[in-house]
């Protein structure tokens, strides 16, 4: 039995820890993450509050734990949305080609050229400024990149011998795509999906900073990070801890993503 690669080990440990924290945070936190305590404003990390308190006297650790679940959930759904929609669109256009492809890709490129801020603001206004609004807005913003990459892969594959062979053997188009095209998209998609996961965690933060209000009243790491900025000199822990959470999560996801890709990439089999 071979030991798993170090990237799988470290990545797995980080993501495992995150999952435990998120699960625990949903059930129990040391303090109520929303309870205000005016006497404990901007308290430094200490015995009563392990990671300090924020400008409303709320316990940072409890908020990080409660925020883990929200943040991860938002990121997962957003990435899931973008990957599903983008893959479907990419495979479809890459396969049918012709004028349908042209039109869809023109829309796709238009969306790519759109600054994310405006897209998010517009869609948040339409969908409603809540968790699901963010998921739809960011999901839509990331869909075109996915579509582009998948379409590229499909285009390069469709002339390959094994695809041709599958067709000659009388397999349906749908089967060919699922069996032979999709697996070849996994490697590039893993890289993209792991990056995207991080972008989502941060995008929310950047939108908050610009005042474009991404508003869950419940804590998320992104809005905690953005909200900490005015206190950077007085209470650095307010930003450092959510920042660290985001960093470590990203690191874990990236390492794990690499490991997963190595396992799934057909070219890597047997190496």
């Amino acid at each position, binding site marked *: 039995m071979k030991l798993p690669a170090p990237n799988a080990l470290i990545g797995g440990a980080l993501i495992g820890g995150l999952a435990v924290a998120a699960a625990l945070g949903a059930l129990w936190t040391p303090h109520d993450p929303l309870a*205000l305590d005016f006497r404990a404003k901007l308290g430094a990390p200490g015995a009563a509050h392990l990671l300090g308190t924020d400008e409303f006297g709320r316990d940072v650790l409890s908020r990080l734990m409660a925020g883990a679940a929200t943040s991860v959930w938002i990121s997962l759904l957003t990435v899931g949305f973008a990957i599903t929609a983008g893959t479907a669109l990419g495979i479809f256009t890459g396969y049918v080609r012709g004028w349908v492809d042209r039109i869809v890709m023109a829309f796709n490129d238009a969306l790519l050229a759109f600054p994310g801020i405006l897209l998010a603001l517009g869609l948040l206004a339409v969908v409603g400024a809540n968790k699901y609004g963010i998921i739809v807005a960011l999901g839509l913003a990331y869909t075109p990149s996915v579509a582009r990459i998948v379409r590229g892969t499909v285009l390069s594959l469709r002339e390959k011998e094994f695809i041709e062979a599958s067709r000659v053997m009388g397999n349906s188009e749908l089967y060919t795509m699922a069996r032979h095209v999709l697996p070849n998209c996994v490697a590039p998609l893993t890289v993209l999906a792991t990056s995207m996961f991080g972008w989502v965690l941060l995008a929310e933060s950047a939108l908050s900073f610009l005042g474009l209000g991404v508003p869950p009243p419940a804590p998320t790491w992104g809005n905690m990070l953005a909200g900490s900025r005015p206190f950077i000199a*007085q209470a650095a822990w307010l930003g450092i801890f959510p920042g660290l959470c985001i960093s470590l999560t990203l690191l874990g996801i990236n390492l794990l993503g690499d490991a997963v890709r190595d396992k799934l990439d057909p070219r890597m089999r047997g190496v």
Partner: protein
Amino acid sequence: MKRLAFSLCAAVLCTAVPAAAAAETVTVALNADIRSTNPGVNRDDNTDAVILHVVEGLVGYRENGTVAPLLAESVSTAADGLTYTFKLRRGVTFHNGAEMTSADVLWSWNRYMDPKTDWRCRPEFDGRQGLRVTGVAAPDPYTFSMTLEKPSALFLDTLARTDCAMTAVLHRDSVRPDGSWDRPVGTGPFRLGEWRRGEYVTLRRFDAYVSPPGERRDGYVGAKRPLVQEVKFVTIADAATVKAGLLSGALDIADIPDDDIPELSKSRAIEVKTAPTATKHAFLFQTRDPLLGNVKLRQAIAAALDLPQLVGHVSNGLGRPNGSAVYVTSAYHDEAHRRGYTHDPARARALLAEAGYRGETIRLIANKRSSVPSYPAAVVAQAMLQAAGIRAEIEVLEWATQLDRYTKGNFQMMSFTYSARLDPAQSYNQFFGPKDRFPSKVWDNPKAQELIEKASLVADEAERRAIFGELHRLMLADAPLVFLYNAVDTTAVARRVRGYAPWVASKPRLWEVSVGD
């Protein structure tokens, strides 16, 4: 390495040289660029603040919020209360050297009342808001008179309003031959220097300025000598950058969020000055909402809020709770206005039961602009409401979106800030009115309507005082909104700057300000 050393050396030189040249320049931070140089037309608060250094009106606000002559020497009212006669000060010159006479006042007035000018305050004077100027005349070079349709207690106050740009008197060189706006040629203590859009606007001292009489600065009147050579208003959107700019000495004067006070007070080069203003923070209710239409529920919410604690927290201990539309330092803020809602959880619970409240969620709209406590107030209120058994959810909107919801009356509850109005009647008018015609108004009550109309007509102070007291009582009973407190203007001022003080109108004034070492 050599190049690096050179550029560092250049850095030192560069920061040293402008510092010497800047001794006579006072740098002030603005959170957004001005919109135009056209007084009272394309404007916002920052635009008014800058432009009112350049132009002046016949009358202006004093420190205590009352109105006094500025370009006028005296103002007299005819016995019927309809005709106002302004005697102009002699020897006042425009920035182009021309003497100001009643012909200029007349020209300026006619320009403002021309629909093509788009003066923001034209509706205030053409009868649309009740007040109508029927005639103006310039019988001699130093006399100007205006006649009203009906007597009004608000006429002079409206002329002095900062958002009307004080109904400033302009020289006709301010516009191009085709009538389009060029640049302000006014009578103010400073001339417009250079405006780099998105970066800064500078004002230069007007050396021929003749200060109005007075020993001391008094609002927009009194002593107004320009003492520094140049004032530079720099646009900085990010409050953290403003703080760094103050600490580094790159900025001399800036409004700062209350949260920054403790940190900036520690710096030896900076002094934090505060002044109560007439800006009002409030929670608005939509009284036409199926849920909040119930006055019992609104009163329950009011009783659930611990206002002293809320205000203490969001203002960092600077603000005083004020449940009245009349600002806390106003001459009209008497005993009657000290009454407000008191925190009473038992009463809140009883009222909720009477209202038949069954845990429905109330959506509370707020925004995250750093210049107003909209968001922190909402967060604290949410926790207090929750403690009283009321479910509230905060919806954070970007400001323009919130304003749109406000204008359309499309909200349940909103954490909102009303800009400063110094006269109590003007202040009530901001939120009172027929909801059918003005969806943004939160309070609509026939009895109050009568009282406000009366307050706009009556000039006698004692009588007005009684009216406002009665209005406040009515408002507390109806609970269309909960006033929290009047904003406190917190300004950080570099110690090298002498004589600067924030004041009730919440606008910087750079006259009578000098630079020491």
